């Protein structure tokens, strides 16, 4: 294969009138980007007016990507043309909402986190007469069932109430049912052991065809409810709040709002658990917490 020559390669500068055409390209590109920003803004405005779900303060890069995935899947070529279908067809709207709100996780994902829970958080929770845990943005319930199993094995399940919330009613229903696909269970079993599991993972579910159903005893102390981190307020006081890989989808302003919401929802010395690469380090509320476990992103409210 012939390789192009180095440094003669920049067509746009070497061609006659190259300078002018490169400036034109840049202006065109700026304009195209600006229009795309406007289209996204309009679409999210429409979704907000229609559903009350506010994605306008989500991380722009993330939202843009998810919207474009939908646009392409629905076989449109512009966001504006896709918008018409979103506004007029409930099924299309629902698909967009699913795309914007659902984050895939997995049971005992990031096993080191659950090990840290066992080593650091469980001893702390033992000191309380009763325990309230909030799993915020619980999606299909992977973290909820993982925590329920962990608490059972540590003998804390009876005195604990888990509040599992999510913006999306559809996935919340799935979480309530406790039905998961069978296929990833083997990988989850490995995670379960790495996370310090003391029993057999398969003891906690029954298999039906290509699905598994988790034992209803795991749900006994779990309350599933719809809650919107962007708009709703504090509803209870918690000893532990788990919100992992949810905040990365919000812009900075919205993250700050949610930090405040979590702060208001924690008992003094309560723990906020974030995702592996999330941090309070650049947050306004940083000073109200100490970084209790840097590796596993466990923060303790101290003021």
């Amino acid at each position, binding site marked *: 294969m012939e390789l192009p020559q*180095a440094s003669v390669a*920049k067509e746009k500068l070497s061609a006659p009138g190259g300078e002018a055409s490169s400036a034109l390209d840049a202006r065109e590109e700026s304009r195209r980007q600006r229009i795309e920003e406007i289209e996204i803004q309009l679409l999210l405005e429409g979704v907000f007016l229609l559903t009350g779900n506010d994605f306008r303060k989500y991380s722009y890069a993330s939202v843009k990507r998810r919207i474009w995935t939908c646009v392409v899947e629905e076989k449109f070529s512009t966001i504006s043309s896709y918008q018409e279908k979103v506004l007029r067809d409930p099924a299309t709207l629902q698909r967009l909402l699913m795309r914007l709100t659902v984050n895939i996780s997995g049971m005992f994902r990031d096993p080191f986190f659950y090990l840290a829970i066992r080593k650091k958080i469980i001893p702390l929770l033992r000191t309380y007469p009763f325990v309230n845990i909030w799993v915020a943005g619980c999606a299909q319930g992977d973290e909820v069932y993982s925590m329920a199993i962990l608490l059972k094995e540590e003998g804390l399940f009876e005195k604990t109430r888990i509040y599992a919330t999510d913006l999306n009613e559809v996935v919340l229903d799935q979480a309530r049912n406790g039905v998961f696909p069978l296929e990833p269970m083997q990988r989850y079993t490995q995670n379960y052991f790495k996370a310090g599991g003391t029993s057999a993972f398969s003891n906690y579910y029954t298999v039906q065809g290509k699905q598994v159903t988790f034992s209803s005893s795991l749900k006994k102390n779990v309350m599933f409810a719809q809650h919107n981190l962007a708009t709703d307020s504090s509803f209870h006081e918690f000893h532990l709040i788990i919100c992992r890989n949810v905040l990365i989808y919000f812009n900075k302003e919205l993250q700050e709002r949610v930090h405040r919401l979590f702060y208001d929802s924690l008992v003094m010395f309560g723990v906020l658990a974030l995702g592996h690469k999330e941090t309070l380090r650049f947050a306004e509320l940083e000073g109200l917490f100490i970084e209790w476990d840097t590796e596993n992103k466990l923060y303790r409210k101290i003021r």
Partner: protein
Amino acid sequence: MGHGKQIIPEDSLIRMELVVVGSSLGGVKALQTILSQLPATFPLPIAIAQHRHADERGMERTLVKVLQQRSALPVSEPDDNERIEPGRVYLAPADYHLLVESGTFSLSADGPVHHARPSIDLLFESAAEAFHDRVLGLILSGSGCDGQAGAAVLRRLGGVLVVQNPATAECDLLPRLVLKSVTPDHLLDLSQIGPFLVHSLNLSAATSNENNCSQRKNALPGRSS
């Protein structure tokens, strides 16, 4: 393509504010070579999307350690919202996408792109949209098509694209794919890339931004990892 020839900085390089690098198979060795050639005074931030295992925790020889061993610049994996600081090397964390916004990094746990997370495409595209003609994109050895689209976007939005000569790449698939779809600004042997960055960017930065440069060099924040 002269070996040992003085590389004359182009005017366009004076504007540079960020270097983004994309690599997969064979990339780690290439990165070690390039990083070992950059002085501690290198004035720009460097963000790297290197394809890697999804879970490194519990491993002794982490990728950060491997690269830090050969680098005079501090190497770290940024957290979400971390500011982009000059003279530092930022490595996309395992199992996250690294995105660039105008002054900070943003992480995503979205699905893999062309089976890759971190994705080169996502790093390059976000950097191109945020920095336009002030970003230099570097494509190194690699085995898949992740990076092909991103390189094209980066160039289309005005950035400078440098591609490693496939003949010097441990795996030439990615550089070849990129060359098929876009003409780079520079096509360089692996051994030329480090010197190119030093001469072209250091000189440009020093002559046009003297005040900024010395402020930036002295502003390395302390950071625990």
